[in-house]
């Protein structure tokens, strides 16, 4: 495997890992549930995507044959991640989980005003 290829793979891997970490950090440090929801939904998914690209390159180069099936994982994740986020968010909404006060248009408070 050429050095260049290794660098490219490494980049994808590290980038992916970084995104994954950022997503998880978001989950850890953001202040309310709805804000935390953003981190993993996107950053982590993208992070996995990056690593999957790294893997595709790695195996395709290693076996000298295109190895695309990891792509399927990414596909699955991209299909499911927003739905997961939606349904968890819906649950949080239903439970009226405390939001940061500065959040605008909090639905149940509006409903209370109506």
């Amino acid at each position, binding site marked *: 495997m050429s050095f260049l290829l290794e660098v490219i793979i490494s980049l994808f891997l590290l980038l992916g890992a970084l995104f994954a970490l950022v997503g998880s950090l978001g989950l850890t440090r953001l202040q309310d549930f709805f804000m935390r929801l953003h981190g993993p939904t996107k950053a982590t998914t993208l992070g996995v995507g990056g690593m999957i690209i790294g893997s595709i390159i790695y195996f395709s180069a290693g076996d000298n044959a295109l190895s695309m099936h990891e792509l399927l994982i990414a596909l699955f994740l991209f*299909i*499911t991640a927003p739905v997961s986020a939606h349904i968890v968010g*819906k649950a949080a909404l239903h439970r009226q989980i405390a939001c940061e006060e500065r959040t605008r248009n909090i639905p149940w408070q509006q409903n209370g005003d109506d």
Partner: protein
Amino acid sequence: MTLLSIILLPLAGALLPLFTERFGRTLCAYSAAFGPLCALGILLGSASSVFSGHTEHVFFAWLPEIGLNLSLRLDGLGLMFALLIVGIGLLVVLYARYYLSERDSLGKLYALLQLFMMAMLGIVLSNNLLLMIVFWEITSLVSFLLIGYWSHQSDARKGARMALAVTGAGGLCFLAGALLIERIAGSFELDAIFAAAEQIKAHANYPVILVLVLLGAFTKSAQFPFQFWLPHAMSAPTPVSAYLHSATMVKAGVFLLARMHPALAGTDGWFYLVTFTGMATLLFGAYNALFKHDLKGLLAYSTISHLGLITMLLGFSTDLAVVAAIFHIINHATFKASLFMAAGIIDHETGTRDMRKINGMWKYMPHTALLAMVAALAMAGVPLLNGFLSKEMFFSEALHLESMGMFSWIFPLMATLAGIFSVAYSVRFIHDVFFNGEPIDLPKYPPHEPPRYMVVPVEILVGLCLLVGILPNLTIAPFLEAASRAVLGHEMPDYHIAIWHGFNLPLIMSFVALAGGLLMYKQRSGLFAFYERKFRHDEKILFESRVQFSVRVAQMFTDFIQNNSLQRYMALLIGSAVVAIGYALLPNMQWMGPLSVTELEPVSLLAAIILAVGALGTVLLHHNRFAALLLMSVVGLVVSLIFVRYSAPDLALTQISVEVVTIVLLMLALYFLPQMTPNESGAKRVGRDILLASAAGLGMGLITFAMLTTPYETISDFYLANSVSGGGGANVVNVILVDFRGFDTLGEITVLAIAAVGIYAMLNGLHLPLPQADGDGRLWDKEPHPPILSVMARILLPLAILVSVFIFLRGHNAPGGGFIAGLVTSVALILQYVASGTVWMQQRLRWRYRRVAVSGVLIAVLTGVGSWFFGYPFLTSTFGHFYIPLIGEIELASAMAFDTGVYITVVGATLLILAHLGKLAQTTHSPRPSTSTSFTEAELSKGEN
């Protein structure tokens, strides 16, 4: 063979009366008499041969492996007893015909009596000690039924139970003794035991044997201190008492003493134990008999006393004492049976047995009175009656005994004292019943003579008393001689039965007894007052209360150890395992095997920490059930990562799939359960549990570590070597599952299918309250099926099925296989259930999951059966590579069909479980009110808490 028929005839005869009962009492009686009559004929037929010293043997192997044989002997002792048993039995049959009222089942009584007769005959004819015990215990059992014949009476029930318990316990001791004897003699056959007599007596176990056998004999013969059951057995119908408590059951004990005499007697132990027990019994019985107001009670205590006398004689063990004992056995049987029958007649005619009420019967039933008086005089030992003869012999033997040295005077003294009492109660019987003024408050008045044939048995017996009493040598001598010879094992000593031996010491003792008895009866009022003051305790109440007490203790103890708490049982189970491990490992344990440990990896350490947090979190948060569930999922996830790390992708796949299905399942269930676990364990309890849990963990950790560092050699190389060539697959794990160990997998999917069936059955008719709000009291969301979810779920379905097909097809050569594929399919379908609901699914998927599940198993079975047609064992696989143009080489393996079975079972079972659990709320919603559950309306409206 004829010998065997003596026993078999009454046995067969036992059934006869049950059938003939409906044709009338007389016919019933005839049919009952038939068997014993034949037996009597056979016995008398063989008498001469026995008299001539011949012992007849019959031998059939029953269970020769343990020395139990149907081995019978007819010697003098046996003959004499058998004649007593059959003869008196016949008289009782005749007597009972008239005694028993129309209400009671005569057939049942006859059947039981004959069964009892059979058992008694068995005892006396057995040549095998174990066989004797068989019959011995049968007598205990049947006597239970006979005593309890009038089962509606509390006394009868209690008396029966008491008799059974006491004689049964004795029988068990006897059994133990017999087994010990067999260890020494090497056989249960009496001949062998007699031959080994010296060894037995010299053996270290001899005292134990002696005590055990004597316990058997003493309990049966109502010897002191086991005598208490006998008076209470008087609740039996009088024919039963006449039979069991004069001639048979109680005689079994003294028979045993006589029978075992050659093997066990002749030692100090025998002498002291038997003699003094007999003496105590003799005095105790005689003394108590005097004070009983109940006719049968008097007779019962008198019986005890006479049994004591016989026992005492057998304890003396001198030749003449043995002769006297046997003689008294016969005499007692005749006069006591007739007395019981007479008492029964009086009871029958007056309606009471209370001697304080029954007076002056001489006037009302002179015939019966005469017979009873003669019998009572025989009991008292009046000359010219049989009782006198044997009593004289007893006095004589008591006088001649010098075993006790300077204390030997005690025997004649006690004998005379007993004689005095004996005369006194006999006189009381005669005077109180037949004279003593007019009867008082009789339930039946006026009494009159019984039916003619009811007295016949009494006449015969009393006639025998007289006959033997007057002409002993013409009548009883040969029997006595034969019997004594059998007991002593050698020729008879020179002795002479005569009415008149001259004016000697025994005669003086007899006169002292007579005079003393009369005097005592004269002074009875003072004695009665004394007795009433001192002896008011009732053994029956005492016995019952003791039994009650032990039952209560047993209940308290059982309730204490079995408190019906799963928590304790679980702790015991786990504790047992901990003890097992600790016991094995703690002594001289090398904590580590010879292999060195591999290096710690940081990522693995991190993963382990995650797992630890997950596991501990599950425990710490377990009161919040949903949160605990989430944390447990983490554990599952890390476990599947462990599987990945250590080269088990198949396991990881399975673990992760099962994990999710389990979580869904847990949530389905959690919906109907409280959301929080109440805090109900105290600190002590938690401490104990933590201790146990830690111990269990420590144990597991230790064995894991020790195992991991211990080298091993495995059969698995075979699988690696043969997976491709023999099983046609590169994924060895899968080949093991569907081929090498396909039988396991068959069992495993059967488990799954049965679980589905069982769950289906359990859900059937299950009604649970539907929580209207969640754990915090929040009402549920209004939207059952969020549209975004529904849409995406439907898109995922074909994709997921595609994935499952992929996993299935690859399974034989890469991670995957039928089980995982099945789970993926199931999960995809469950997702539809979650997203779109049961109704929606039911419209689209009309499978009957239970059938699907078992069909899968059937397919797997059929695959296995297929190999039979090629002559191979069940589940033999085959595979082949086929070349198809354009496509190339493909492989087809029969294991694939098997795996299909697995797939179908998994899909069917999983969906059955989840879909039916899901439907639960719907069925619960149904209009049927919640009558079948125990929930109150209040709880329903309040929801869960």
